[in-house]
Every structure is written in structure tokens, then in C-alpha cells.
């Protein structure tokens, strides 16, 4: 029994209803019963101490004509007749019943089911089963049909035939105990959903140890692509719901935490505080956040208090160790030296004049006694990956208290996380505190709220491209330090320049701290049983501060500046006020109406400041005393503010419990748009049909649930920079006489007609349950078109500016999403279920700019653009040359036409103009997958549990821009070991050019050789847990005790040759997925953890 909290109740003379509520509050159970059957106002006395639920129920219903049945978390109560003969009702109009039928009704496990209604179809004759599940009924003829029904079970109809004994096994109806799903401005039973909403409860979300929400979601929700692109403990996730809609506006989903819209940084949230997470995907679900819903909405609900007499204290903690999961093969000292000398010798071919002048000597080992032995062999062979990366240790502790009484509940939690990054000197500390309370002050008034304080602070070298690159490029001949204790440096090799990564890591600080305060307060007025009015106020305050120092000796970083110290801060303030009225009208039990209308104001503002000082007498001061630097860089500061004003409404109408209708509308105004277009309306409509409730499917033995959903609607996107509509005059500094002067010039073209980007979406979905919902399937198809794209459309440079924010262009996305959950085995001591989520999204650009011109949105590499936007192609397409290989000796004449020699790279001349240049570029791949899939298995055997998560991403490309440095060029830095496979006169069949010094010439452009298949299969998580049995628990005086061990990223199958194909080094760029320019390695993480409830 997974929900086995011990219950203690000592109450005299309370109603049964109160007693049930008390039990509910101390446990996770919910009672389901019909008030007309069960006398809930009957006064009782209940005294139990640390009883199990069974003990409590046994005591409670002793002597009462009530039968109970536990289904998961639900307890169904039924009235039972006395254990006697069946009640036989007679009707004069009816023919005398002659045949007596009896039997046993059992549940799916074969246990007796008391209180089951049995009705002879077409008559009013009926009975109920007794406590042993027996029944007896008289029927008039053998063709009579018996209908067996029981709350929470699927009704069954049986023709008695010539049998006198009819035994029936009823199967549970999952729908009846449907979970409640959070939607915008309310909740709804899952079966009543009309939109496409995925819901994950905390135990599923936190089935593996994670440090942030994004990690927890990864691979679990169809249509939600979570890419963890960084090895940094708090790395930014790229989360996309149903593809990329937008080009210059954001594609990030909207985060709503406990109703606070657009929370700035979800990484700061302690995942242990989450009770449930809902992803709103289609327009019907997101339109209520119309203005900002186009990219999907992620609703996070935190854990609330319990109105139990005994509080629950829980502790969760884990420690983990992360190690480098993969290494990149680089040249060792001997190989490097050999390649170096070969490279210099080859200058005879590629720069004969310079070679003859003596510009290309071999390595003079005799002149470098610190690095070479007398016989010319290298003294050192340093593996810089070993020197730069470490075993990352993570510690996490979370304590929460949940408690309260009948009127007021509260919860409080504290969290602490220390996580090392793989790269040395990098770590994150996070401290979280959360307080939630809800109180029924009056029968007509409920108030509540929450406050959460989150703070993190860490040092992060992952953001530093230079260091990560240097790990690959540092020459293995160089030690970290010489025997005399001085730092070694690459510059000890002629032509090489930088210091070693070890020194950069040591003499550089990049410390970021974030402090976030989120507070929310609501007042809920219950005007009457049908009507309530809710007023909420919320704030989200966020302060970020970055302290940076780069030492005065670090070549190419800060040596010339004598050390650089920068402090930058950003303070964001957000508030919202929302007011909405909810009207629930039940016309009868099968026809219901829910109407919600509301209005909202939101405002977010920020103040930013950055100060840089240079030239320090010593590294001692770092950023602590900016005044100690003697060179001041002009400080920069800025601020901004945007406001939103919205009016929204939603109607849900349920007809005959089978036909569900939803209409939503939101009228939004945003300060970000031009005076002429501030407001826009975002409507949506949805319809759902419980097909399985129709007669023709009602008793189908295979299909236990079938719901069809369809929706259409429009949502918006306003995530552009502030004041983009305005024609701004920018200030710049110019120099006269060594002094800065101000200059004023146009900085934006301005566009008073700027308006909302709109996404129209249709969605058709099926929810299917087979074999009494042992297999659940959710299938969705969607098609969406984003129009009036907020696009920085390129304009002619003759305007003096390069782009203008306009509403031009459109993009479409369509795709399928599939989620299948199968409960293969559901036994008391053994269960096994599997969840598979899969999705596929196709993206296509329909229109761009005023002339449909190509746009190169970045990321860019020094050697050329990597990404292109072209009409008819998907966003995130990679752009480059086609590398055919190398020119062979026999192709010398052909090579000469391209001014190349045998040994040079051979590219495809796509336009056949006899030249290889950018005109020969084409679309060579893309950074979005064909499809992706997550497969999760959960097994429970007695006290043991096992979880296994696999993630598959197929049909995605990665452009390994580091190929430029690791393979295409070589000479003054280390390179990949693959360059041993370079062209030589005796080895001509290769993709790598003949080695030659950088001073001559070489070709290196984004091309099909840089591009690689980035498909992968990853073992996300393998977890073994053990729940201690009741004897241990009782001895330790705890309620629950679980220990577990997990291995994350435990395997990776991919053809990709970098650290990890799930990569983006252009994290801030919309189309940066799959761009790997010295990306982070990913750890393989081993964790052991403990959860305990008191």
C-alpha cells in the first residue's frame, strides 16, 4: 500500500461526513459515495490510533450497512442490504417471475464485491449483492438481460440463458476516478478535458533525481522536446512544444507557477516542491493565455498543505557523482610532433617561395630543453581533458512539512543543492524556501497564498568558449606546471599563443548569483454554491548579479588589459492582478455549464547595470574592489518595462455527459506594439465526445474508453524587445583627442504598425483505453500556422540600418503526438507498466521578408553562416558546402581549374561556375528531429522498484563547427586524432586535406563533413529503489522509508563524433540547436538517495 500513512483520529459525536474528511486529510485517499445512499450526517464516534486505512474503515463502518472498496486512492462507499435473501419486487403488470438466478459478483482481483446493483433490463426488478458479494434474483424468462452496475466499475449486461448461476467479474472504470487536471484559471477532471493537455504528477516527474524542472520533464511528454544542451548543473534547457513557431520572437513556452504568469527563471524552482505539472499544447488549452500562449504553456502547481491532525515531515536527499561520459580522441605528444614536422615540410609544396626563404623550420627540439629530452622525444604527454574536467559531486537535501487542520492547511519546504560541473572550478549552490497556506476563513471566504525564496550562486566556466576550446587545442607537449612550480604555457611552443586551460580555470572567476522571490495571494469569495469570485495578486522579483574577473596574466583574455573585472546586475520586478468569476451550473446530473470571465493586468520591468574596470596591480582584488583598477570602461545601464492588459472568458458545456464544448476568448493589449495595434483577440473552440459512453461501445470488451477531441483557435506571441515599434535615436561614443564624445543617430527604424504574432492551430485527438484501460493511448494531430511573424526583416543597408521589426512572413508546423501507457502486470506484489511517448513535427517556412529573401539568422561561424531561413524549408536548416573529399594526384588538372592542388579539399561546384565559393552552399541538414521518443518502464516487485528510461531522437543533424579547429587546420594547436588520416601522396582516399602550415592556405568552411548525423539513443535513467516494509518502518518510527540508486545517461548510442549530439553552443539563439562549437561534455551520473516521511 503505497499511500499507507498511519491515521490517528479521536472524535466524539461527529457526522460521518466530517469523519471521512478527517481520514481524507490524513491520507491521500478520497471517498466517493452517493449522499442519498449513505447517511453521511449520521453522528458517530471514531477512535483509532496509528491505524492503517483498512483498520480505520473497519472500525468506522462496523455495524453500518455500508460496504467499502479501495481503488488506488479512491474509496467507494455503497449501501448494502442485510445479508439475507434477495429483494424481489413484484409488479402486477408483469408476468410472474419463475426462474431464480443467483451468483457471485467479484472485482478484477476475484474478491467479493458487495453492494452491486443488479437490474433486470427493461423492468424495475432489481437487487443488490450482500457483503459476500452474493445475489439472488428472479427472472421471468431465459432471454432476460441482467445489468450489473457498481460505482467505479464498468457496467456489464448478461443474458441469463438457461443458467441458474451467473457469476460476474466486474472491471474497474478508470474514468470514474479520474485525476484532476489543472488548466488555466481552474481545474477540470481529466475526462472532461477538451483540449490537448498532458499532466504529470510529482511522483512521475521526480522518478529520478534531477536538479531542475526541465531535466525532470525530458522525454516524458509527447510533443515536448527538452534538450539539455549544457553540462553545467543549472544549464539552460531548450524546451519546444510542437516545434518552432517564431523566428525573432521567443519559442520558449510560457511558465505559470501557481497562477503566476511568465515566471522568469524556472531553473530556480526546487523540483521537490512540485505537486503536478501540466503542459497545455493545443489552442483550446492555451488560448486562455492567448497573448502569450502560442508556444504552449507549462503550468506548475506546488504542493499544498494537508488538513490532518498529524503533520507529515518528509526528507529527500541524494548524493551523486558525475564523470565524463565520453572523451574526444586527440593527438598525443609524439603524434603531435610528428604531424607538426610533416606540416612544416609540406610548405615546400604549398608555399615554395617561403619554404625556400626558410620560413618553415621543423620543431627545434634542442632549443626547447624544458619540453624535450636530449634525444628529441617529448618529456610530457598531457591529457588536457583530464586536467580540465573533474568528477562532479552533487548533494541535494529537501525537507518539507505539510500540515493543518480542517480550516487551514500549510506546507513549508527547504531545499539545498550543491552541484559541481564537470569542468573544474565550476559549481552551483541553490537554496530554496517555500511556504504555502490555504484557509477557509468563512463559509463564504477562502484565502491563501505562497511565498517562495530561491537563491543560487555558482561559478561557471561552461559559458566560456575560450576555455572549452583550449581544452581541445592545448598542446600535449606542455605540462600544467614545470618542476619549478611555474605555469607552463602553449606559447612555450613557437607560434602557439595561449596559456593552458588549467591556468585559465584557475585565474578566472565567473560567478553568477540569482535571487528570486515569488509571492502570490488569493481571495476566493463563494457568493453561493454556484458562483465564486477570485482575486489574485502576485509578484515575481528577480535579481541577478554576475561577478567576473579575468586575471592580468591571461593571454588573449585579459593580459593586455591588465586584468578585467566586471560586475553586472539585473533587477526584474513583475506584478499581476487577476480577477475572475466562476459560475458552475448543473442543470441536471448530465448537463453542466461552467462559465469563467476575468480581467488581468500584468507588468514587468527591469533595471540593468554593468561596470567594468581594468588594469589591476594584482589578481588579489578580482571583482571585490573595482576602484583598485586604474582603467575605467564607461559603465552601462538600462531599464525597460512592458505592460499587458487582458480580458478573458471561457465556457465549458457538458451535454449528456458525453458531448463537451469549450469556447475561450482572450482580448489582450500589450505595450510592446505600435499605437495602432495594441490589442488583439484570441479565440478558440473545442469539442470532445465520449464515444465509449454511446450505446454501441458501452459494453465493448476491448475498448473501455474512447474520447474524440477537436479544437481550433488562435494564440499570440509578444516576446520581442521592448519599444521595438519606436523610432529610437541611439547614443554612441566617438573619440576626438583621446576623449569620448557622444553621437546621436538612428538606432531603430521603428514601426508604428507593429502588431501581435498570431498562431492559428487545429488539433484533433483521440483518448483510447483498452482492456479496462490497462492500455491507455492518447493520439493527437495538429496543424498550426504562425502568421504576421515578428521578424527582424532585413532592409537595404542604404537605409542606414540593417533590419526592421515587422509583421512579415509565416511558418507552419504540423505533427503527431502519441502517448501509450500499458499496465502489463498489476498484481499485489508485482506490477509492471510501460509508457511510450513519441512525437514528430514537420516545420516549413511559408513566407519571409518583403521579397522572400533568405535570412541568415545566426549562429554564424568565423568561416561562414551555419543556419539559413529559406521559404519552403524548415527553420533551423544548416547551410554549407558539399565536401566530396580531396583532390587526387591524378586529378591535378581538374584541381588546377579551381586553383587547387592534389591534397586540397574537393568541394562540389554546385552552380558549375568553375569557382568554389558561397554560391555553392546549399541546405545540408537541420537541427530539428524527424521524430523523438521516450520509453519508460516501471517495475515493482514486493518492496523493490525498478525504473528504466530510454530516449530516442531520430533524424536530427549536428554541425560540429569545432571540426574547423580540430581537423581542417593544424599547426599551432592540438587537433583530433582523426587527422592522422589526412591526405598524403600514398593515402589519397580521405576527407581530410594534406597537412600544411596555416601561413600558406587551407580550406575550411561549414560543409557536409562538419555536419553529422545527430540521432541518438540515450539511456536516460536506470533506477533501483527499495521501500522498507512495515516492520522496519515501525521499528524506526517513520511512516515511509525508501532508498534508491540511479545511473543517468548510462549509455549513448550515436554516430556523432563530439561529446554529445544533444548540444547547442548558441543557447541564446533561436536556431542554435545542433550547433556544436566546442560544446560541453555530458556527465554520466551515479546517484544514491533516500526518502523518508515522519
Amino acid at each position, binding site marked *: 500500500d503505497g499511500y499507507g500513512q498511519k491515521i490517528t483520529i479521536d472524535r466524539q459525536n461527529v457526522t460521518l461526513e466530517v469523519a471521512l474528511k478527517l481520514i481524507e486529510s490524513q491520507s491521500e485517499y478520497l471517498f466517493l459515495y452517493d449522499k442519498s445512499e449513505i447517511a453521511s450526517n449520521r453522528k458517530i464516534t471514531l477512535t483509532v490510533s496509528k491505524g492503517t486505512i483498512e483498520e480505520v474503515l473497519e472500525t468506522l463502518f462496523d455495524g453500518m450497512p455500508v460496504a467499502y472498496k479501495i481503488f488506488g486512492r479512491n474509496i467507494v462507499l455503497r449501501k448494502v442490504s442485510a445479508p439475507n435473501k434477495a429483494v424481489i419486487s413484484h409488479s402486477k403488470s408483469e408476468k410472474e417471475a419463475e426462474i431464480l438466478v443467483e451468483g457471485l459478483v467479484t472485482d478484477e482481483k476475484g474478491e467479493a464485491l458487495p453492494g452491486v446493483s443488479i437490474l433486470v433490463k427493461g423492468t424495475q426488478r432489481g437487487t443488490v449483492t450482500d457483503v459476500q458479494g452474493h445475489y439472488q434474483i428472479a427472472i421471468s424468462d431465459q432471454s432476460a438481460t441482467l445489468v450489473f452496475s457498481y460505482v467505479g466499475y464498468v457496467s456489464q449486461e448478461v443474458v441469463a440463458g438457461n443458467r441458474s448461476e451467473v457469476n460476474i467479474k466486474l472491471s474497474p472504470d478508470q474514468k470514474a476516478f479520474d485525476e484532476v487536471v489543472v488548466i488555466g484559471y481552474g481545474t477540470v477532471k481529466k475526462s472532461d478535458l477538451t483540449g490537448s493537455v498532458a499532466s504529470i504528477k510529482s511522483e512521475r516527474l521526480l522518478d529520478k533525481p534531477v536538479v531542475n524542472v526541465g531535466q525532470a520533464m525530458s522525454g516524458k511528454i509527447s510533443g515536448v522536446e527538452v534538450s539539455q544542451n549544457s553540462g553545467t548543473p543549472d544549464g539552460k534547457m531548450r524546451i519546444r512544444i510542437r516545434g518552432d513557431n517564431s523566428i525573432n520572437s521567443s519559442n520558449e513556452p510560457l511558465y505559470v507557477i501557481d497562477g503566476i504568469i511568465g515566471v522568469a527563471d524556472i531553473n530556480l524552482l526546487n523540483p521537490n516542491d512540485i505537486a503536478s505539472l501540466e503542459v497545455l499544447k493545443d489552442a483550446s488549452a492555451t488560448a486562455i493565455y492567448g497573448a502569450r500562449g502560442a508556444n504552449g504553456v507549462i503550468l506548475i502547481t506546488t504542493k499544498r498543505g494537508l488538513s490532518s491532525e498529524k503533520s507529515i515531515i518528509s526528507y529527500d536527499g541524494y548524493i551523486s557523482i558525475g564523470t565524463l561520459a565520453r572523451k574526444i580522441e586527440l593527438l598525443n605528444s609524439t603524434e603531435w610532433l610528428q604531424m607538426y614536422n610533416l606540416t612544416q615540410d609540406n610548405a615546400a609544396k604549398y608555399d615554395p617561395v*617561403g619554404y625556400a*626563404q*626558410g620560413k618553415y623550420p621543423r620543431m627545434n627540439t634542442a632549443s626547447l630543453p*624544458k619540453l624535450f629530452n636530449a634525444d628529441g622525444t617529448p618529456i610530457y604527454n598531457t591529457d588536457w581533458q583530464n586536467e580540465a574536467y573533474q568528477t562532479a559531486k552533487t548533494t541535494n537535501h529537501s525537507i518539507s512539512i505539510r500540515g493543518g487542520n480542517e480550516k487551514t492547511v500549510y506546507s513549508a519546504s527547504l531545499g539545498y543543492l550543491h552541484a559541481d560541473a564537470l569542468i573544474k572550478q565550476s559549481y552551483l549552490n541553490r537554496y530554496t524556501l517555500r511556504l504555502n497556506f490555504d484557509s477557509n476563513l468563512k463559509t463564504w471566504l477562502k484565502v491563501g497564498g505562497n511565498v517562495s525564496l530561491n537563491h543560487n550562486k555558482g561559478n561557471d566556466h561552461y559559458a566560456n568558449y575560450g576555455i572549452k576550446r583550449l581544452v581541445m587545442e592545448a598542446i600535449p607537449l606542455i605540462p600544467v606546471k614545470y618542476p619549478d612550480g611555474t605555469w607552463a604555457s602553449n*606559447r*612555450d611552443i613557437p*607560434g602557439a*599563443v595561449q596559456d593552458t586551460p588549467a591556468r585559465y580555470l584557475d585565474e578566472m572567476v565567473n560567478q553568477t548569483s540569482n535571487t528570486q522571490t515569488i509571492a502570490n495571494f488569493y481571495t476566493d469569495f463563494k457568493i453561493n454554491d454556484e458562483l465564486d469570485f477570485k482575486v489574485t495578486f502576485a509578484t515575481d522579483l528577480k535579481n541577478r548579479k554576475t561577478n567576473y574577473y579575468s586575471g592580468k596574466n591571461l593571454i*588573449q583574455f585579459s*593580459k*593586455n588589459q591588465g586584468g578585467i573585472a566586471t560586475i553586472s546586475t539585473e533587477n526584474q520586478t513583475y506584478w499581476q492582478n487577476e480577477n475572475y468569476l466562476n459560475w458552475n451550473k448543473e442543470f441536471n446530473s448530465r448537463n453542466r455549464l461552467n462559465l469563467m470571465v476575468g480581467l488581468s*493586468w500584468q507588468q514587468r520591468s527591469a533595471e540593468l547595470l554593468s561596470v567594468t574596470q581594468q588594469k589591476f596591480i594584482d589578481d588579489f582584488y578580482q571583482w571585490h574592489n573595482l576602484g583598485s583598477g586604474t*582603467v575605467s570602461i564607461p559603465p552601462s*545601464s538600462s531599464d*525597460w*518595462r*512592458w*505592460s*499587458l*492588459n487582458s480580458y478573458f472568458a471561457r465556457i465549458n458545456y457538458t451535454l449528456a455527459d458525453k458531448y463537451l464544448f469549450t469556447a475561450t476568448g482572450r482580448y489582450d*493589449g500589450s*505595450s510592446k506594439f505600435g499605437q495602432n495595434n*495594441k490589442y488583439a483577440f484570441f479565440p478558440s473552440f473545442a469539442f470532445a465526445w465520449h464515444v465509449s459512453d454511446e450505446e454501441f461501445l458501452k459494453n465493448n470488451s476491448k475498448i473501455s474508453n474512447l474520447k474524440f477531441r477537436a479544437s481550433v483557435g488562435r494564440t499570440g506571441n509578444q516576446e520581442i524587445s*521592448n*519599444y521595438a515599434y*519606436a523610432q*529610437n*535615436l541611439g*547614443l*554612441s561614443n*566617438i*573619440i*576626438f*583627442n*583621446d576623449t569620448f*564624445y*557622444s*553621437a*546621436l*543617430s*538612428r*538606432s531603430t527604424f*521603428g514601426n508604428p504598425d507593429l502588431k501581435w504574432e498570431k498562431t492559428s492551430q487545429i488539433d484533433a485527438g483521440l483518448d483510447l483505453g483498452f482492456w479496462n484501460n490497462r492500455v491507455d493511448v492518447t493520439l493527437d494531430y495538429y496543424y498550426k500556422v504562425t502568421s504576421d511573424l515578428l521578424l527582424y526583416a532585413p*532592409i*537595404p*543597408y*542604404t*537605409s*542606414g540600418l540593417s533590419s526592421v521589426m515587422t509583421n512579415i512572413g509565416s511558418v507552419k508546423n504540423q505533427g503527431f503526438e502519441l502517448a501509450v501507457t500499458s499496465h502489463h502486470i498489476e498484481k499485489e506484489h508485482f506490477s509492471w507498466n510501460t509508457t511510450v511517448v513519441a512525437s514528430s513535427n514537420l516545420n516549413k517556412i511559408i513566407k519571409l521578408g518583403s521579397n522572400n*529573401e*533568405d535570412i541568415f539568422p545566426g549562429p*554564424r561561424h*568565423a568561416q561562414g553562416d551555419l543556419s539559413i531561413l529559406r521559404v519552403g524549408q524548415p527553420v533551423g536548416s544548416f547551410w554549407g558546402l558539399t565536401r566530396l573529399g580531396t583532390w587526387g594526384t591524378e586529378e591535378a588538372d581538374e584541381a588546377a581549374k579551381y*586553383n587547387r592542388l592534389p591534397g586540397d579539399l574537393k568541394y562540389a561546384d554546385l552552380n558549375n561556375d568553375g569557382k568554389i*565559393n*558561397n*554560391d555553392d552552399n546549399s541546405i545540408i541538414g537541420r537541427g530539428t528531429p524527424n521524430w523523438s521518443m521516450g520509453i519508460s518502464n516501471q517495475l515493482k516487485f514486493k518492496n523493490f522498484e525498478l525504473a528504466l528510461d530510454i530516449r530516442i531522437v531520430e533524424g536530427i543533424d549536428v554541425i560540429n563547427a569545432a571540426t574547423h579547429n580540430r581537423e581542417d587546420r593544424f599547426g599551432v594547436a592540438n587537433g583530433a586524432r582523426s587527422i592522422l588520416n589526412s591526405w598524403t601522396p600514398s593515402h589519397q582516399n580521405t576527407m581530410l586535406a594534406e597537412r600544411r602550415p*596555416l*601561413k600558406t*592556405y587551407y580550406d575550411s568552411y561549414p560543409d557536409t563533413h562538419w555536419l553529422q548525423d545527430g540521432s541518438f539513443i540515450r539511456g536516460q535513467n536506470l533506477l533501483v529503489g527499495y521501500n522498507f516494509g512495515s516492520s522496519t518502518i515501525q521499528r524506526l518510527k517513520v511512516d515511509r522509508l525508501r532508498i534508491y540508486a540511479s545511473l543517468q545517461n548510462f549509455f549513448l548510442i550515436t554516430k556523432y563524433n563530439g561529446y554529445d549530439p544533444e548540444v547547442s553552443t548558441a543557447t541564446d539563439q533561436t536556431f542554435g540547436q545542433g550547433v556544436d562549437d566546442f560544446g560541453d561534455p555530458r556527465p554520466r551520473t551515479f546517484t544514491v538517495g533516500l526518502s523518508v516521511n515522519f
Partner: protein
Amino acid sequence: ISCNDFLDEQPTGTLSSTSNLTSADAALAFANSAYVNTSVFNSLTSGWGSVTPLLLEYMTGKVSSENSQSNFKEFQELTVSSRSPYIEEWWRGCYAGIANCNLALQKLPEFNQVDPQLISRYQGEVLFMRAMYYFYLVRIFGDVPKIKTSQVELNELFVHRSPIKEIYDEIIIPDLLAAEKTALPLKDLTGRTSLSAVKTLLADVYLTYAGYPVKGGDQYYAESAKRSLEVLSHYTLFDKYEDLWKPENNNKGEFIFQIQFSLNKSSNQMVNIPLPSRSGMSAFNLEYGSMIPTKEFVESYREGDIRNDEKQFFFRTYKGNKSKFSPGAPELTFMDFKGYYIYKFFDSYAIDVAGQSGLNWTIYRLPDVMLMYAEAQSHADGAPNDASFAALNAVRYRAGLSPFTNSDLVAFTAAVWDERYFELCYENKMWFDMIRTRKIRDDISGQYVNFIGYTTKWGKTYSNTQLLFPIPLREMQTNPKLVQNTGY
């Protein structure tokens, strides 16, 4: 709250084009905007170790590169494409400058509370800069869109190309003639435009206008000579060449107009770009070797010319920098680079110590004006006068050469052109001289031969195509009214 007020958010840190500005400082800020894009004459472009001046040197055939990422090879092969980042940056930078000038010219007359003399001076500066940007554009691209007012509506953006002559006649020359009449000072030692700079530019414009491709007529030689003569008397040559690469001489001495750099504020990349690639000879992060003179050009200097002595305009040896070599390394005392490198921008404090340079980049200096005068006057009058001889020989005298005395126009012209090569090399003058005269000096024979049909040392032959660079592809794509230059 009224909802419209709630949604009315205005920028707080940025002025808008409708802001009401009245102070003299604001007027100055508008005038200053004309200079912001002077960075186009010397700024980094995409491509490691690449700067804008390389475009105008790579095409001359007198320069090479040991930095493959500077894309020298496409110039060496004469296969330069419309995607070249150099081209895009020149186009973008000049037009961004022009847009600033257009706005400033519109705004300056509105400052009616500011001293009119001051406004007049500012207008002179802005007119000068607008003419300068257009002057570069027509020489690099030929016909270009003519934009004289600040564009505000999206439908104004697409402008067709106007003929070169129209750009000269309707913008460049009228702007400079107007600037001549403003309250500009005769000279300026802080780096701002002076009347002398206006006249120098006008002299250059007329000299160019008289040559290819406009061929405006010999009267423009006279107009040119008239302006340069007015400048000559206000400036004197430095005694020693090394004064050219000392930052303390910025805007002084023989410098007439320069692009401003300053230590710790803005470093002149052309100081380290030409240094021997990755040699470790400087305190700069890197030496790029992106611009190295050909052996043929350096060795074509005549016997006795001081300028090609070691560490005058060129160098072959130096010492390693202590930041790049371990103590005691032999390189710290001597390094032989086994070839010629440019010494003209050798700010030794930057190279030895600072790793960044405040040395200005010169647009006009006195020898240029002297040689312009000699050429223009001799062509206007059919023969050189005494002043022209004096001007030419002043340049030769400093180089240790004997005075030139032959008054034959062809011989005199060749002598002037020789000095333009030897004195002004690698200062972004040579290419414009080549296309203005359509002549190129053959390093081996010392003769001036036709540019079209000339075969470079890399075996590539100039054709009509090379007279202009292509319009950047991006501009072609964003403005459907543009037609590409022939050959691209």
C-alpha cells in the same frame, strides 16, 4: 487606470526621433554622428584577422597574406564574390554614415537657440563626411543609390542606382563646395574636420573626376590644383618617417585628416594585422600576417631610397615579445622573419608593451596633397610649375632621392605616380590610383602599363570586371531595384 495609459510604455534610456532637443551639446552629438561610421575605413570584418582596408590592398597585386582566413586567395585569383564580407562592410558602413549625415543635416537647422556659427561649423563637418562616404562608394561600387534625406517610411527603402557622375554632381561636389563656405576652422588638431580637410578632399574628388571613369575634363585638374595649393602652405612634412607611426603625432604635423584611435578606448587593428603571422614578436594577442608586401614591390624601390631601408617602411627582423617567450629564449633578442613585412604602422609601444594601439589611421596627409597638386597642376597647365616640382621633390628629398627636374609631362607624371606608390603604399591609395588612371606600375620594368590586360605575379589578368567590386549579395536580395555590376 485608463487602459490606454497603462499600455503606454515609452523608452527611458533612448531618445526618439521626435524628442525635443535644443542644447548645443545635442547639436554637437548630431554632428558627431557623421564620424561614427568613419570606422568603416579601418574596422574588423568577419574573417579572422580581417580588416576593411585589406579590400583595397588585396586587389592591387602588390600584397599577399599569410592568413588564410583573410580570404586573400579569392582576391589573388580575382574571383571575389558578392558575398565577400569586406564588400558588405564597406557598403554598409558608408551608407550608415550617410544616413547619420542625412539626419544631422535635417536636425541641425532646428537648433535655433544655438550659436549659428557653431551650427555652420557642424554642418560643414557633416557635409564633408557625407561627401567622403559617397566618394568611397562610387570608387568601389560605381553607380550607387542616391539618398540625401533621412528615410522614415518602409516604402522609401528601395532606391535604384544613380550614375556615378550624378552622385558627384549632385552630392559629393555640392556638399564640399557648401562645406568650403561654412565656419570650419582652417586646421584642427583634435581630429575633427577642418577647412583644409575639405579642400584636400575636394582636390582629390576633382582629380578623380578628371580621370576614369567620369573623365570630366581638364578644367577639373585646375579646380583640384586650386584646392590643394590652398592646403600646402598650412602643413609641413615630418623630418623622419618614424614620426608617422607615433601616436603622439596623431592629428599633428603632416596629418590632415585621420580616423581616430585611442589607447584603452579603441585600438587600431592595422597595427598588428600586418605583423608576421603568429611570430610572437608583439604584445598583441596575435600577429596575423594578413597584409604582407610582395618581394617584387619592395625590391622595386630605387637604389638609395631610405623608405625601403630596414625598419623604415618595411622590416625583416625584430625580437620576440617577452609575453610570448620564456625568459632566456634566444628569440627574445633576435628573430629573422625571412621576408618583408610592413613597418609603416609600427607603433612600438603598442607592439612591445601595450598590445593595443592608439595610432590613428590616415586618410589624408601632406605628401598625398603635394603629389595631387603636382599631378593636377601639370595636367591643368600642360607642364609642371615650380610649385609642382617643389612638392614632388619635397617627397623625394625626405626619401634621400635626388630632385626630379624633367618637365616633360609624361615623365613628370610617372615620377609623381612613382612617389604615390612608394610614399603612400598600403595606405589605401594605390587601388584608387590604379582605377583612376587605369595604369599599373610593373614592379620589374618600372613602367606604367594598362591596367586592363595586366597579368599579376599570380598569373591572373585584370579585365573590365575588376574596375568595380560587386554590390553585396545581401543588398541585391533586400533591394530588388538594384542591378549587379557586370562580371559578377
